């Protein structure tokens, strides 16, 4: 009986201390990718605890060149500059191409289809303006204590950032 009471008291105290620790803990943070460190290895697509990954490609429109031959959209040496499967780099067809005024095209990401494989990011960064890049989308991310992608990221590009500034988007100013 005494033993039970002691256990109960200890458990109660533990919960109380835990609660206080939770309230007074470090500032709120979430995981995010630094796009300037990312090396487009493709592990984001497979290492995330979620399937499909919470990492998605984002398009920074002010940086985009609206190229007719978009190196993030087309295979290297594309057969033709159209939307046929043999010409597209994205394995899931998540990039939508829309003709604007000739010779400009708009490229946007359909996040439901994007799996974060970074093929487009690699193409756009190496040969284009780098407007495609990866970000952890917080409407999907479950914010694990230890991000399983951060563990395997070869560029160590994933770190915790303040929750009120949850994204690290590329910007034209940064490039300038």
């Amino acid at each position, binding site marked *: 009986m005494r033993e039970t009471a002691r256990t109960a008291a200890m458990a109660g105290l533990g*919960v109380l201390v835990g609660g206080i620790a939770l309230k007074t803990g470090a500032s*709120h943070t*979430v995981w995010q990718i630094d796009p300037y460190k990312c090396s487009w290895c493709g592990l984001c697509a497979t290492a995330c605890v979620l399937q499909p990954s919470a990492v998605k490609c984002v398009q920074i429109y002010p940086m985009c060149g609206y190229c007719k031959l978009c190196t993030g959209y087309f295979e290297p040496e594309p*057969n033709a500059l159209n939307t046929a499967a043999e010409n597209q780099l994205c*394995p899931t067809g998540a990039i939508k191409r829309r003709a604007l*005024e000739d010779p400009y095209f708009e490229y946007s990401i359909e996040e439901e289809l994007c799996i974060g494989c970074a093929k487009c990011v690699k193409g756009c960064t190496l040969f284009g303006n780098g407007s495609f890049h990866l970000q952890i989308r917080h409407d999907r991310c479950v914010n694990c204590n230890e991000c399983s992608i951060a563990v395997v990221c070869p560029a160590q590009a994933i770190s915790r950032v303040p*929750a009120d500034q*949850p994204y690290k988007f590329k910007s034209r100013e940064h490039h300038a």
Partner: protein
Amino acid sequence: MPDQPAPKLPPLPAKTPAPGDEHPWKEPARRTAWVAGIYCAVLAVALIFSYFQSRQVNPVDHPRLVALKAALVQKPTDENLKQQIRELDLELRAAYFRHLARVQRSGWLLLGGVLVLLPALHFATWRRRLPRPGKYVVRPDLFERDARLSRLAVTAVAVLGAGLAVWAVKSAHSDLDVVLAKQAAPAKAQISPAPAVDASFPSREEMARHWPRFRGPEGAGVSPYTNVPVRWDGESSEGILWKTPLPYGSPNSPVVWSNRVFMTGGNSGQREVFCVDADTGKLLWQRPVGKPGKRLPPEDEEGRFYATSTCATDGRRVFAIFETGDLAAFDFQGQPVWQKSLGKPDNQYGHSASLELYKNLLIVQWDQADEEAGKSVIYAFNTATGAEVWKTAPRPVGASWSTPVVASAGNRTLLVATGNPWLMTYDPDTGAEVWRAQVCHGEVTPSPIVAGGLVITANEELVATKPDGTGDVTKTHVLWKQLDGIPDICSPLSDGKYVYLLTSSGILTVYELATGKRQYEHELEMEFKASPALAAGKLYLFGENGVTILAAAGPKFQELGRNKLSDLVFATPALMEGRIYLRGRNQLYCLGQKAP
């Protein structure tokens, strides 16, 4: 003590548990556990199988696809190869997304199975606990009592723990909550549609008693009232009933219905509709429209105008459109009724055509890009719901900045709209084209008017077109054309006998409506942005510097007076019964004489 033979013990009972050691649910629980266990095992095996299978259909760098694409580089014209790539690509993608859907579904099914399995296992393996050695050997009667107290204590701790856990979850601010709340914030600020709306609409006569749109009824700039103020002075405040500071210095014009004055305003970051009490000048409400964006630095905003389109009201609601493509309706209390986005138009100076109303239709001239692009259309939206009622066929015109008018002309009601190079008219009930004339040129900004049974346009040439044609009437219905004194911003004005043109550099040119004969040209030596207006036979010419010149309508120039305000004037004022609502750059002025 003599040895006694050991007492003969009764034979051990068969291996059946004593009554009370067996849980009443044990047997059903055992069966349930078997079923749930097998179900979970099958699902787990299926998931593992699906996982390995998915590695074969992973569309990322699938070896066969990579090989086919490499082969295509060698044989770029091989249609058979292309077809194979397309088929395989489709197959891999479909299989991959099917796999993802299956995994998600199976996960939930497995969780359900485990939730059944665990309690079933608990009861299936339930056994009465034996008393522990110690005090219970001496006092076995204490065991039951202590066991009961222990159970109570554990339950109490569990309840306490659960309560604390709920409190912690409720009060703790999850990191993701911060992000998600931030993401959701603009969506919350969005205007949600009101449940019930008034579907009635005003008659043309009712519209004519108010100033419901840019340049008043039918966009003519003509006030039906004969007691419009003629004298005021900004310095002494004589003839000024009230003035009220405005939240934005946008150049759109005030529209007036009964005792409400509506305007819009904005900067590079946000857009608003606001309402002023016409009797007191009090700003009653202001409401945001569309998503706010990041504002440009002040030096980049310098010299630019935002919210250039004038709003419109049908006496039930006020409608506003902005250069971002945001279109919104509010009731007179400022409650949102509906809103939609038409998408940002391709327009080099920004959209500035104002809104027109006809019956229960809100008419939006949405010209953009160039004449070959086929992007220019006119929409009609239901004023009560915002639903699209009709849309014209793509208009063969480029971006324009003039406002359409719906007016009676040639025994029918026409929607008249100008764009480069066509003056086009439509049936306002259906949006079907009636006729067109190639009489517009350049950057079409002055709006058309209908006067004296003619359609008047002034876009690099002044043209009077008869309104009773069909099809292309360029060669058949153009009554006359003139080239002098054509305005670049201000719209033409007519009293039914003469047409008055005012250029932004201040040249007033007057033509006879029936013949196109020039009557006079007079230099006012002032800049003008506001379109001229007419009331009780007097022309109201609102200079950009705040000076309004009053002149007699007719074939000869005769100045009747000048009134000054210390404000810049870009917007065309509203001329109402005994009052003028004049929007300056900084203030809204209600001009009129105080009641004795």
